[in-house]
């Protein structure tokens, strides 16, 4: 019975066990530190020191540095050709593909799928431990799809953001729901959560989609143990707040500024970083004259209060839908003989920005792609030069396309090479801008587009290695279809990723030469991880085509429409003695 009428039904997990712990081999001297850490529950201290714990993949990006790099090197460029699948897990939920980054905590893998299912698997065998199924919402904001990109783990709980804009905490051992908090009515805001939450200290922090809706974006923090709301940071300042004057009239109420990709945290500076998406209407800016803060910006917040410490806006008054929303990679660099605590942020515009992460000052920017005509360049102070803004009612040829010079899927940084590995998408669009009245919570694009090949040749993509400071390209691996999976770099000298056709491959991090590949049956759109259980290194990748962008690609490559969707995890390892 329900006293209130109709809270969504309570569905616990099918409990097949109680959160198995993998054996910890203290005998191996090199593993003593990880083992000591691994014995403890995941808490703030353990998350801060995740880079000392290579057996696990504790946060969405691996560690707060967001490198998507592992010091594990049992699998390396010398032996990767012997890599073979050791288990596969099929979730069966294929609508929306599988876009997540699995987490690994002490031998257990936690992975979320489309439609807000979460699975706990034995990371060594792939055997299911529990399965949680969030009740299917009556209606979801259509623009943002059915997928989910990952969970967070801490304090004995697994955190999930949902299609109907709730944050949910599950018991890590059983998968039973512990609390659920509605962020805001999804029906009303036209926004929801597809990204992985981030745990910082005792808080679980989550962003929302909604940047292409008439909605005012924000970031929220909840007490991790109770789900009680702690703070909200509005990505668009309200009346009386600094920055409000960068919005004309009432446009701030419907100005987008979503926070749809997971941010990160620097424990030393005690700053929370998040990248804010595009202003809405995406393509028509006439009703929102001004810079439109804090859209297309990096914001640094006090994690305890959500108060803004600094911001840096990459694209004032965006009219191309070029979110700054992607990953924020923390790098300590030597620049002009000076040590700088920097952050690197690739943007949908196809440019990468480098900022001082202590104060937000501009350190540089460089392009990931050649198909780029929205600006002529970026000046020495970070100013955009030669803006090519589409005109209302006229067809404009704009590069990169709405799909971005890169998609959200994340790059990787290897401290061994000192290079940043990222995909780049060479494609354009014919854009027709039109003025549009906002309708709260409804799509608010202000135009239509049709993908197009660049003038210089056929649309394609690449995975390349770059000097993170100068953007100098070290090598490039080309692909005829858009590469839409994240990169994984390892101390074994490898960079791993996958393609639309289902090929998962390992490249030599130094040369870009392909060393190994395996067909997983469905295209790659998620984030592969690596971990070890009992001293054996595994590489696990989601396999499952079917995202928004995957659908969009059929405008240029109709044959991609024939590629199968899927939703499985493949785990690879080297053969053990006797195998």
């Amino acid at each position: 019975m329900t006293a209130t009428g109709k809270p969504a039904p309570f569905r616990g997990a099918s409990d097949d066990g109680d959160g198995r712990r993998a054996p910890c081999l203290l005998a191996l001297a090199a593993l003593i530190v990880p083992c000591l850490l691994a014995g403890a529950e995941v808490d703030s201290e353990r998350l801060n020191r995740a880079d000392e714990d290579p057996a696990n993949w504790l946060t969405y990006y691996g560690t707060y540095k967001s490198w998507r790099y592992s010091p594990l090197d049992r699998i390396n460029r010398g032996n990767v050709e012997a890599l073979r699948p050791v288990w596969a897990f099929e979730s069966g939920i294929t609508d929306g593909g599988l876009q997540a980054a699995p987490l690994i905590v002490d031998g257990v893998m936690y992975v979320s799928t489309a439609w807000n299912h979460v699975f706990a698997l034995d990371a060594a065998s792939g055997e299911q431990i529990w399965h949680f199924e969030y009740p299917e919402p009556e209606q979801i904001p259509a623009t943002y799809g059915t997928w989910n990109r990952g969970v967070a783990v801490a304090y004995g709980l697994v955190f999930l953001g949902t299609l109907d804009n709730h944050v949910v905490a599950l018991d890590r051992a059983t998968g039973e729901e512990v609390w659920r908090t509605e962020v805001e009515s999804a029906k009303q805001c036209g926004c929801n959560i597809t990204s992985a939450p981030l745990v910082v200290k005792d808080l679980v922090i989550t962003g929302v989609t909604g940047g292409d809706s008439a909605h005012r974006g924000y970031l929220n923090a909840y007490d991790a143990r109770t789900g009680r709301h702690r703070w909200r940071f509005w990505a668009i300042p309200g009346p009386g707040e600094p920055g409000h004057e960068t919005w004309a009239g009432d446009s701030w109420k419907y100005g987008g500024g979503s926070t749809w990709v997971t941010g990160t945290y620097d424990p030393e500076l005690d700053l929370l970083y998040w990248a804010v998406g595009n202003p809405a209407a995406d393509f028509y800016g006439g009703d929102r004259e001004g810079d439109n803060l804090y859209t297309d910006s990096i914001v640094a917040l006090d994690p305890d209060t959500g108060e803004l410490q600094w911001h840096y806006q990459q694209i004032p008054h965006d009219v191309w839908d070029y979110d700054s929303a992607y990953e924020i990679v923390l790098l300590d660099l030597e620049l002009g003989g000076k040590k700088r605590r920097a952050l690197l942020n690739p943007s949908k515009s196809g440019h990468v920005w480098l900022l001082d992460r202590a104060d937000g000052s501009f350190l540089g920017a460089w392009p990931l792609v050649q198909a780029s005509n929205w600006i002529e360049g970026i000046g020495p102070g970070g100013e955009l030069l030669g803006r090519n803004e589409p005109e209302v009612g006229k067809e404009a040829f704009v590069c990169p396309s709405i799909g971005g010079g890169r998609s959200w899927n994340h790059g990787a940084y290897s401290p061994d090479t000192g290079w940043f590995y990222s995909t780049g998408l060479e494609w354009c669009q014919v854009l027709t801008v039109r003025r549009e009245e906002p309708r709260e919570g409804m799509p608010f694009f202000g135009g239509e587009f049709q993908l197009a090949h660049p003038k210089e040749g056929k649309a394609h993509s690449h995975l390349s290695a770059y000097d993170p400071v100068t953007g100098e390209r070290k090598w490039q691996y080309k692909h005829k279809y858009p590469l839409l999976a994240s990169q994984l770099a390892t101390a074994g000298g490898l960079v791993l990723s996958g393609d639309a056709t289902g090929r998962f491959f390992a490249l030599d991090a130094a040369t870009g030469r392909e060393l190994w590949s395996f067909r997983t049956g469905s295209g790659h759109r998620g984030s592969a991880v690596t971990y070890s259980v009992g001293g054996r290194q595994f590489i696990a990748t989601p396999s499952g085509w079917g995202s928004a962008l995957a659908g969009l690609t059929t405008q240029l490559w109709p044959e991609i429409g024939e590629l199968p969707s899927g939703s499985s995890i493949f785990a690879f390892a080297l053969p053990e003695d006797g195998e």
Partner: protein
Amino acid sequence: MTRTVAALLLLAGPLAASPLDLTSPELIADGAEQFARSCSVGYCHGSEGKAARGPALRERSWDPRELYRITVEGLPGTSMPGWKGVIPDRSVWAVTAYVLSLSTEPPSGASAVIDLGAEAEASDRADLSPGAALGRDLFFDLQRERRCGVCHEVDGLGTPVGPNLVVAARSMNERELARHIVRPRASVAYGFEQLELRLRSGDRVAGVLAEETETHVRVFDAASVPPPLRSVRKRDIRERRNRERSSMPRGMNKVYSSSEIAKIVEFLRESGR
């Protein structure tokens, strides 16, 4: 729903009563514009229905009423939402007319004329007085984190944590309603007495009971707005009691001015008629 949509609904009223010719160039042009704003967008059906993530809609064959029905109801289990109550009924028919115009067999003759009669829906929202319509906007104002709609549902919008205020408004006058909003602890609605749980861990959870199973109690925790729905294992409960008090947060007079509260009351009273 914004005032803009409410205004559209008002406009839709008289038009909805007459038969619609699905081949009317005016209606198709209207549908094309609505399609560009709501259907082709971003990642869905693509410009002119050429497909993106959603299926291609052009160059197919459709039954007009089936197409209308899918648009209004959505397709459960897919990303296709229902547009009922989101865009006016006439606009759904305009979109239908536009998609039909792209199809391999556009309707003609009698099959192209739709008598809206039964389908046309009078909208309660369109009937609200200007004051009540403003009250509705305030009730659901997303710019206020502690708005009424966080815990109360009216006409399918908002979240049903607390009592149905439209029902409550039927048995109270304006003054009483306003007093309950400003001074919530003065009384409590039947069935919404606060449940207080003291847990073995030392924690305290107090709020509105949502559900009770053999093993769990689910409570909307009133310690925060929005209230988390806490699933507490019965074996973790040390003490449990019902308190004759409301879980509604105090301080709504800081969220809304007294004239705004008067508008909200007007909205609730009119909705309850």
